[in-house]
Structure formats: C-alpha cells, structure tokens
C-alpha cells in the first residue's frame, strides 16, 4: 500500500474525487504520522477530533459528487491564524490560553473549499525569527539530518534539547518541517521578511509569498502590517498553486485586501515560459558569497534559458539598504501592533499594584527576548526626536527600493531570479546568540520583496555538497503570481525531484 502521507496535494485530491480513498483514511494516516513525529515539535496543538469530523463531512459531500477544490485534504495551520475555539497564540506566552471567537479569512476560505484541519503549527514568536528558535514552545527540528549524521545520533539529539540538529528556518518553521516530514499535505504560513521562503529553501519544499493584498490579513496575528502577507508551503509548485487559489481573495474585513478576483493558478503550472525575460540583479551577488549558492543561481538561469526564456542583467541599486530599512520599519510597526497585549483583554496577566506596573510586568513575562528587543527598537525609532531620522528615512528608502523594481519591470523583465538564502540550513543554537544581526542576515535576499510588496516564489533547486536542500527565488510583478508558478515549475522540473528525508524520527 502506498503511504498516503507521501501523496502530493494534487494526487490526493484526484484520488478523493475518484473515491479511490476516503478523506477519513488520509486524515487518519496524517494524525498517526504526527503522533510518531511529536519529537520534531512541528505541531503545538493537534485538533484530531475536529479533523476526523471534518473528514467525515468531506466524505459525505464527496459521496454525493459534491465538494470544493480542497475537499477532504488534511492541512496544517500556522499558529498565527485565528481559528475559532482553537489554540491561537502565535507561539507567544503572552497569548496564554487564547481561544479566538472568530476565524481568520484565510482559514475560513480553506474550510469553505473543503480542507481538513490537523492542528496548529509551531513558529517563531509573533513571526519574529529566522530559525523557529524564538517560539515559546521551543525549537522545531528539521526532518533533514545534519551532514554526516546517522539516525541514532539524530534520535539522541532529538530527546536532548535538539542541539546540533538543523533548524527548518523561520518564522514558519513548524509549517515547513510538517510539510517536508509529510505531517500534512500542505500548510498555511506567513511572510513579513522571508518567513515563507527561507523555510521553504531550508527544507526542500515550495513556498510563495503573494503580492501584498492578495490574501486577507483579517484574523492573522499582526506583526508588521505593511509587510505581512499570507501564503502556502507545499511539496510541489502545483500544490502551492492549488492552496493559494483557495487562500486568496477579496475581503471586506481587510481594507488593504485587493478586490481583484483570483485567477486559476493551477492552470499556470506547466504553461510555457518561452520568450519570457528574466532579470538577474547584480546587487544580489554579495561579496564573499557562498560559491555553491552562486553556482546554483547560474544553473537556475541556464535552466530557464534552456526552456526558452532570455536572461538579462538588471540593476536594483538600493538592494543593500533593504535589510537595514526593514529593521526600522518592521520593529516600528510591531511596537504599535503589539501594544494591544496589555494583560487586560486576553492572555497572560501578572499581578500588579497599578496599571503601568500591570503592563510592564505582563509584557516582560509574556514576551520572549527577541520580541522584547524589537519592541524596544520600535519604540526608540518612533520616539520624539528620532522619528524623522529613522522611521521616515526608512520609508523613503522603501520608496527607492520599490522604484528599482518598477524600473526593471518597465524594461520588460517578466520576473527576477535570485538565490533564496545565503546558505543551506544551519544548526539549532548556532546563530545570533552574540549579535542579533547575524540571524537577521538570513533574510538578505527575501526582505526586499516585502519592502516592495511584490510576489515571490521559492522552489527547491537541488542539494548542497553536504546533501542539504537549496532554493531559488523568483520575484514577479504585482499580482502576477501566475508567471511565478509557470517559472517555478520549470525550475522544479529542471532540478529534478528533491527526495525528502526518510522518517528517521519515528
């Protein structure tokens, strides 16, 4: 019997439609796999009863020849999506015990289309992190083994704090690990500076951050509102396209959500890329760049050329300023958004004699070190006397970053090809303990896209000499996700199948 958890989302969909298997069967197979993979720490809450109930309802609809595009397909949900009556904490202690009375639009869209919820996935606290290590629930172990590690050594590390094992990246680390470890067919994720794309690259799967406004942010725990965007993680480009079509769409509850209708993204998968013009930005060629990453990038350009696209050099001169500007804009918006955690209306509360002490004690106890640090930076750059020098200046630089992309696209470039990350996955406990900036540099290739509001897809493009997955990023014009799916599939096909790791953790 084929392992049902190894099916792609598209294969599972077709089998359910033809009644070759039931939703209950594939849902149970996933719940069992999650039980066996508890030590990876990918899920922070399981919703097994709800999953079985939803699967049965899906089977009833499928039996009548009904059902939506995702009918009966079990998926995982990042812990920052509000799910009615279910654990929703953005993996922070400050949201202790929070059970929302409402559903996020993205997850509501998925349930409308028939998807089955398996549980909530681990993440960096409030999505602030690039390794899933800032989660209140602890780090997630990547299903990929560190170079030259055997099963026994990895299993021993798994039960001893996970040190030395690889991170799945972050902030959507639980989502990426769960998809790569076959603990769900696909998962929701979110991306403020690279939180979908870097984990996708680290775990050998596909992730897309759509155009700002393509998905509703209603019911997503806010980090930086002008940068946050929902998107899927999946094992193939086609699966990501299927997921995004259901997640996206207009929403009256989010005034920044686009009213434009959602195209059939899956139809773009397999579309010819012949005649497309692909830009390669010279500013992404960093000094001291990892030679493997550089070679991968060149190979990616060759694949697209072989498929009939032309590859041209482009210049995005303000690229080096994107990351520093991000570390002003994002903390500033976070300090405003996270002001709501006050110990009064929901979540954690520390006893105090007066209201200011209540705030200060609750927030000191409830937020982890990385979140506290960013909120303080945010408060500083927005404070009297510094607002113009930091915040306004960063927003001006953001305009320049966006203008760079607009010029490249105006010159007829259809998409831009870049590496996804400066390296393959690193180890748990390896980065950022001395200087937080060390961790921030992970997002150097991804953060520009959030600053400009553009869509970008990361597809697996092969393995490093150490046998770890590496990804390539494609950046598109606003609302042209279809081109990214077409090009992404070309990369996916050219690179050949990334064979995901065997379940050594079971």
């Amino acid at each position, binding site marked *: 019997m084929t392992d049902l958890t190894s099916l792609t989302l598209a294969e599972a969909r077709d089998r359910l439609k033809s009644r070759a298997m039931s939703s209950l069967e594939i849902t149970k197979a996933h719940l069992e796999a999650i039980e066996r993979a508890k030590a990876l720490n990918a899920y922070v809450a399981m919703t097994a009863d709800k999953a079985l109930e939803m699967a049965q309802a899906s089977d009833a609809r499928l039996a009548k020849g009904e059902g939506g595009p995702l009918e009966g397909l079990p998926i995982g949900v990042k812990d920052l999506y509000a799910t009615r009556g279910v654990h929703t904490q953005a993996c922070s202690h400050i949201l202790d015990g*929070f*059970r929302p009375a409402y559903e996020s639009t993205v997850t509501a869209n998925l349930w409308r289309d028939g998807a089955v919820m398996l549980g909530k996935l681990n993440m960096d606290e409030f999505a602030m992190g690039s390794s899933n290590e800032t989660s209140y629930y602890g780090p997630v172990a990547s299903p990929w083994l560190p170079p030259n590690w055997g099963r026994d050594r990895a299993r021993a590390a798994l039960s001893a704090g996970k040190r030395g094992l690889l991170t799945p990246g972050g902030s959507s680390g639980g989502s990426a690990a769960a998809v790569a470890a076959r603990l769900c067919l696909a998962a929701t994720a979110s991306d403020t500076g690279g939180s979908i794309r870097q984990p996708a690259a680290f775990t050998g799967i596909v992730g897309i951050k759509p155009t700002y406004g393509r998905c509703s942010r209603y019911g997503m725990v806010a980090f930086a509102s002008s940068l946050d965007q929902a998107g899927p993680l999946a094992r193939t480009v086609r699966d990501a396209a299927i997921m995004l079509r259901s997640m996206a769409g207009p929403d009256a509850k989010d005034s920044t959500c686009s009213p434009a209708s959602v195209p059939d993204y899956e139809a773009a998968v397999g579309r010819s890329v012949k005649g497309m013009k692909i830009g390669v930005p010279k500013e992404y060629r960093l000094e001291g760049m990892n030679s493997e990453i550089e070679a991968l990038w060149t190979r990616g350009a060759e694949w697209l050329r072989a498929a009939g696209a032309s590859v041209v050099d482009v210049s995005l001169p303000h690229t080096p300023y994107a990351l520093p500007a991000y570390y002003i804009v994002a903390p500033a918006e976070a300090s405003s958004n996270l002001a709501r955690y*006050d110990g009064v209306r929901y*979540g954690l509360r520390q006893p105090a004699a007066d*209201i200011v002490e209540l705030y200060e004690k609750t927030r000191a106890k409830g937020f982890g070190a990385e979140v506290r640090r960013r909120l*303080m930076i945010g408060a500083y750059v927005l404070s009297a006397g510094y607002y113009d020098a930091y915040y306004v200046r960063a*927003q001006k*630089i953001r305009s320049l970053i966006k203008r760079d992309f607009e010029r490249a696209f105006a010159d007829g470039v259809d998409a831009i090809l870049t590496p996804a990350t400066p390296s393959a996955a690193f180890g748990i406990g390896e980065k950022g303990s001395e200087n*937080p900036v060390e961790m921030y540099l992970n997002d150097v290739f991804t953060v520009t896209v959030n600053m400009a509001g553009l869509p970008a897809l990361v597809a697996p493009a092969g393995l490093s000499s150490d046998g770890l997955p590496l990804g390539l990023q494609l950046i598109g014009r*606003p609302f042209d996700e279809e081109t990214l799916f077409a090009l992404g599939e070309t990369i996916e096909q050219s690179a050949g199948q990334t064979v995901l790791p065997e379940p050594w953790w079971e």
Partner: protein
Amino acid sequence: MSVDLSTVRRIAHLARIEVTDAETPHLQGEINAILKFVEALDAVDVDGVEPMTSVIPMRLPMREDVVTDGGIATLVLANAPMTEDGFFVVPKVIE
C-alpha cells in the same frame, strides 16, 4: 547613533516592558548592534523622495456608515484574565 543605559531604561518604559538593572547592559549591547547595522542608511540620498505610505496603489474602500456588528460582549470578554459584571477589571487607575 548609540544608546546609553538610561536611554535603554527609557525606551523599555516607552514599550511598557519591565527591565531589571542586571539585563540593561546586555540589552544596550544588542540594541546598539542593531542601531549600528541600520547606520548604513545614512549613506542614501533621500532628498525629494516621498516616504512610502502604501506599498500597492489602492483606493481605500468605503462603505455605508452603519453598525455592522456588536452585541457580543460575552465573546469580547471571553478571553479576559479578569472580568466583573460584564467589564474588564484593571488595578485602580484614578485616585
């Protein structure tokens, strides 16, 4: 630009986060590392550049000015750590 210890305490208070004297020197080091990192922005000529206000050009949607929800006080209070008679409870604010 860099911050001194008293500024660290001031911004912690602005952010309503309690910090102990023991942790301020470490926080100072981290915050200064980030401020040093963002100094790169000083090199950019931003004369005449408009600060970004909306990343994707979009008209703000308008709707009728009418009540669209409400009457859900119990749901609003459901997650509060302390409530009484349908209200949030906080320590005494006004003497």
